[in-house]
């Protein structure tokens, strides 16, 4: 069982080696700046100088999206194993699936009606 994962390890090492070597090469081969100035290191602001750093605040929708994602992604994690054995379970499996999705649908309708799916500005 475990030896199926050996090729993945080998492949993963090569996949790791290439980006790392590119980064290392970019340090070795990069041109050095001849002149240092403070302005070069400032964050990009389309030429407008940056004001004092302030607390960044985001719309609530980003947090709602994150929570909805967790709910629905866990749904998928539960559905995948069921999908694999669905043909053997036949009608029992299908009813389980229907039951599971029905419960989720209640939550989904609730979330929709509450307006959590609208993007707020």
């Amino acid at each position, binding site marked *: 069982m475990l030896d199926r994962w050996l090729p993945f390890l080998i492949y993963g090492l090569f996949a790791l080696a290439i980006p790392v070597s590119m980064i290392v090469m970019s340090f070795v081969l990069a041109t050095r700046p001849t002149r240092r100035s403070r302005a070069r290191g400032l964050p990009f602001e389309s030429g407008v100088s940056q004001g004092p750093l302030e607390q960044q605040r985001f719309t609530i929708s980003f947090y709602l999206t994150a929570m909805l994602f967790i709910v629905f992604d866990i749904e998928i994690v539960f559905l995948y194993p069921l999908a694999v054995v669905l043909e053997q379970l036949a009608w029992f*499996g299908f009813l389980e699936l229907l039951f599971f999705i029905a419960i989720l649908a209640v939550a989904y309708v609730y979330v929709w009606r509450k307006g959590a799916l609208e993007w707020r500005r």
Partner: protein
Amino acid sequence: MNEPWWIDGIKSVVIVNLVLLTFAYMTLVERKVMARMQLRYGPNRAGPFGLLQPMADLVKLIRKESFFPANAVDTLYIAAPVVSAVTALTAFAVIPFGPGWEIFGYDVSGYVVNVPIALILLFALGSLGIYGFIIGGWASESKYSLLGSMRTCAQLVSYEVSLALSVLGVVIMSGSLSLVDIVDKQNETMWFFVPQFVGLITFFIAGIAETNRAPFDLPEAEQELVAGYHTEYSGMRFGLFQMAEYINMITLSALCVTLFFGGWHGWNDDVLGPLWFILKLLIILFVFIWMRATLPRLRYDQLMAFGWKILLPAATLNALLTALLVVAL
């Protein structure tokens, strides 16, 4: 079929390099094709027909000054593009590309990795890649970067749900999560793009959003956000982010071919298997470029509404209907 480990090593090197080559020439083909669609010539100075352009780009990127923004968190700032690129490259490992051959008395299988949870592994690696985007945007301590990475993260997680649900029909029909089994099953019955047509459409749309391609390229909408999460990046680190993005697109197209278009199957596929696979892959990649040249970008609230209110129910209903048909028939 037990192979000695060095065959896996050779296959890994070949596949990793082929993916990188495809990525390099994807950048050229994209610029060329888009240019022709807009009645321009595109890059044509480096080499005949601009064929050496990717090499020139590589040299340019690697020679750029390695630059740190004043406020950046240095370690994370460097690690982020590497994380994205590594996960993108690794995800390709599970894609089968041929029937397997006997070369000099050794059995060489037509895949690098065949694990029973290949599909989940692929999605998991794709999700890990998001860490690179969000860390990169956060570590560079710039408004545009942070906004871009928040947008990227929200968009990717929203569409990942639909993406994973849209292939549920395929999993139900083939009864396996291993991509090798899914390809075999399609050869026995029929290619899944016929029975799973709704699944294909939702998969493709969600896939475009997952790879930040137009019309869903909100994370780097240049008119609003400059360049999104990689605003502060330059040189090879910027190059690695681009690489991650293009390789994600290649992997997604390969997955699309594998799940819906019969993988490497085709006429005379004992010998020509990999060629069929590459041909189908290129056609899907062309569609990606075509859509970018044709469609205008969505607004952010439209994007989120579309993902949660249309794509998600469509994918769920498709899975449910497939389950019903599989059980009833």
